[in-house]
């Protein structure tokens, strides 16, 4: 079973800065980071405002899950990188620290080679942050912000 994922301000800033840099260095239209279970984490890039990031997160996670299933069928642990080529826009998906998916959207202003190169380095940096986060979550397992919520708080969500 996966460890509960808790993202604090500090890690979020680091992750956002890394994604922003990747967008620049890879000449990408957008960079998205997604939890492997389909939860959107963060995004950067010129087209992000027009993207349905929630849907993209869920479909990308489904895609990676299905592809990992395919990998296992042929005796591979997973396929860590995927590339989808469109007429104008392309998507590169890679698994980070077994917990997240890094999605890079790019067009002819960039190239698959450049994206792969930049993603490799970025993936390693992100993996280090994620591994720290997981360690932190394990050591602070009892410190959930929800420990103090009451039944009334929960009921109020449904009061309308």
């Amino acid at each position, binding site marked *: *079973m*996966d*460890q*509960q*994922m*808790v*993202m*604090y*301000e500090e890690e*979020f*800033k680091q992750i956002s800065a890394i994604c922003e840099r990747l967008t620049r260095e890879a000449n990408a239209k957008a960079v998205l980071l997604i*939890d*492997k*279970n*389909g*939860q959107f*984490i963060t995004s950067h890039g010129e087209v992000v405002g027009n993207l*349905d990031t*929630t*849907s993209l997160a*869920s*479909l990308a996670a*489904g895609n990676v*899950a*299905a592809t990992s*299933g395919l990998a296992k069928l042929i005796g591979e642990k997973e396929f860590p990188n995927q590339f989808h080529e469109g007429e104008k826009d392309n998507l590169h998906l890679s698994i980070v620290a077994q917990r997240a998916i890094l999605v890079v959207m790019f067009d002819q202003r960039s190239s698959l080679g450049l994206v792969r190169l930049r993603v490799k380095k970025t993936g390693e940096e992100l993996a280090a942050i994620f591994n720290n986060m997981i360690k932190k979550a394990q050591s602070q*397992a*009892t410190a*959930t*912000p*929800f*420990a*103090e*919520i009451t*039944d009334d*708080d*929960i*009921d*109020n*969500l*449904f009061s*309308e």
Partner: protein
Amino acid sequence: MSFINYSSREINCKIVYYGPGLCGKTTNLQYVYNKTNPEAKGKMISLAPETARTWFFAFLPLSLGEIRGFKTRFHLYTVPGQVFYDASRKLILKGVDGVVFVADSQIERMEANLESIENLRTNLAEQGYDLDKIPFVVQYNKRDLPNVASAEELKRMLNPRGVPDYEASATEGTGVFDTLKSIAKLVLTELKKGG
């Protein structure tokens, strides 16, 4: 597993609707989608091209409001019900926070219900979850049809643990929101305990 983001002050939870083929899982989501305010929902995705049958998953993101300054978001997923799509079902169960079992109340679907709930137990166990311990709600759907088993009989067969259960007709909407509220509450209560 729920995902708590202190930076954006959001909490994201994943709920999966499980059940035999054509029991009304996607219809549940469709009804929730139709009856929810536009600002509270995202786009509904249904991977069911050409037929009424989901082959991978259907997905609906939903915002429920704030608890102690945290936006609560629920991601509702359905699995494909047909027996031979087991690989897809396993994938969708990954990282689940709560499960709704949608039973088809029609007498001729009793065996399919039992087979599906056993399959749920097995697939959860593979991921390290115990059906007797995770937030779980049962819905007896299609109560509007003529040829249905009694609620008592369904309860005895499908809900020996006595989790919250609801009679429903997803096409008409009866019981759909009761089911959703119930599972959302159980998931949040579980979070309160510290996941």
